[in-house]
């Protein structure tokens, strides 16, 4: 069937394993595998190179928006429990400090045990101030105070950490709406970025997470963490391509430097390896 210069059954099976195993899902996998044999026949490239090309075409992830915004730039970090938000805030802070920016962190996670402790520890390590909840103030109040302080004290970046939440809980999505809204009250253009953090080990639930979070706040970009493990993050890639959301960064470890700019070609290469 495949003739000369084509691709054999074994190789197709191998391609299927790598695509499915990376969490790309059966639909995208079937679509790519259907395309693979005829494309391999038409070229001298190896089937793996052709596979990478087809995959890249099928995940049209838009590039991150890199526009100049007024200072302080306000970034709100959201996502499900344990995805890596707090550590991402720390890594973003480390980067900003490295670029000479004055950074303020805000712990708008007023729920989880020792959330403030965790962010404060990072603040000390990076020599960056951290605003935490005062006496029963709610998450919205922390965000409001942080943005106000950022404006008044002339910070370059304000990073707002929020509590992890499963987005099928509508009351928790309402809290996010509130945080977003009060940030805008403190500074009209805020927040300038809303980063949705996803765990690199996530399966098909990535779609539902993005869709539901987006009913509450306008997500401007994604962060995929824990890609230093063996998970490939295919579900996030597929989702980002389908929903048209830029992937800004990927997390590759637990240290302050372990955040890398997203690069589609590199991501696809790693996924197929």
């Amino acid at each position, binding site marked *: 069937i495949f003739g000369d210069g084509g691709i054999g059954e074994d190789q197709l099976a191998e391609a299927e394993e790598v695509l499915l195993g990376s969490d790309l899902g059966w639909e995208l996998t079937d679509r790519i595998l259907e395309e693979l044999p005829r494309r391999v026949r038409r070229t001298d490239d190896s089937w793996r190179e052709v596979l990478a090309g087809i995959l890249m075409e099928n995940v049209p992830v838009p590039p991150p928006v890199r526009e100049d915004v007024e200072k302080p730039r306000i970034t709100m970090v959201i996502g499900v429990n344990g995805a890596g938000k707090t550590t991402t805030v720390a890594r973003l802070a480390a980067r900003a400090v490295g670029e000479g920016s004055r950074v303020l962190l805000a712990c708008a996670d007023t729920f989880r045990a020792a959330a403030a402790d*965790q962010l404060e520890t990072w603040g000390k390590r990076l020599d960056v101030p951290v605003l935490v909840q005062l006496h029963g103030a709610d998450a919205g109040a922390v965000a409001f105070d942080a943005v106000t302080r950022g404006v008044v004290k002339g910070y370059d970046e304000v990073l707002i950490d929020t509590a992890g939440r499963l987005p099928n809980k509508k009351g928790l999505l309402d809290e996010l709406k509130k945080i977003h809204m009060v940030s805008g009250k403190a500074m009209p253009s805020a927040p300038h970025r809303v980063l949705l953090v996803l765990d690199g080990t996530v399966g098909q639930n990535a779609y539902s997470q993005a869709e539901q979070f987006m009913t509450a706040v306008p997500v401007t970009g994604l962060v995929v963490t824990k890609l230093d493990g063996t*998970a490939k993050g295919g579900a996030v890639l597929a989702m980002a391509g389908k929903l048209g959301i830029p992937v800004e960064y990927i997390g590759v470890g637990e240290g302050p430097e372990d955040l890398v700019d997203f690069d589609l070609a590199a991501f696809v290469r790693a996924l197929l390896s």
Partner: protein
Amino acid sequence: ALSDRLNEAFRRITSRGVITESDVRQAMRQVRRALLEADVNFKVVRDFVAGVNEKAVGEKVLRSIDPGKQVIKIVHDEMVNLLGGETVPLEQKGAAPLVYVLVGLQGSGKTTTAAKLARWLSDNRAKRVLLAACDLQRPGAVRQLETLASGAGAGFFGPGSAGGDPLEVLTGAVSEARLKSYDVVVADTAGRLHVDEELMQELERICTVAAPAETLLVLDGLSGQDAVSVAVEFKERIDLTGAVITKMDGDSRGGAALSLRAVTGLPIKFIGTGEKPDGLEPMDPRRLAGRILG
């Protein structure tokens, strides 16, 4: 839902009046897709569907006026069987204090589960539990467990001002437990990658010394295909006795649970169903099967 898809697949077939084995194989494609969407590992899906196909080409389905319903029943029953038929209880044998160790990837829910487990043991088994903070790595981890301990009605043992290492904290906790007559020590450990050689060796040392009655893998219920490689690697390195699947109060289908069970044979002892200390339930195979099938 799978039932709708199967009914649709069979509707087109039965309109011809007779079902063949090849028709059943076609219907199996719907089962495969549903399971992959539910995050069941693709190798597990392959074996599972082959098993279901074999049962489904029996007389019952081929002669049924509602073959879709028959196939769903086979799929459901096969899944319940695979999940272990019934809940496997926690190991209770041995001199006090029993040691339970929680392990797993970063952010899977170990620290929260440790506190929940303490609470569950106290409410359901009348056990006095001491929580041991053996994660000295993650910022705020010790404080997190200490804070959760009171809500769980459990004692707390941490590194104290001396600092130390996870093994010292664990042995210290066991001594404390003996002294103060605790029944169980539940040890929280640092999240780690199964491919982090140094941290996996540390875990091997901790588990060897602790000789735990239970070593539970805490797995994120939102996980996809990779859950299998994580479980296999952890099981290869330490003597895992069971698993807890967390964040099942979300809308993820939780297929990683089936994969874990199918590939490692590990019993899933509990399901995490929320952030509060009472958010832990013994795994119910029928309910979990229903959820995975959507």
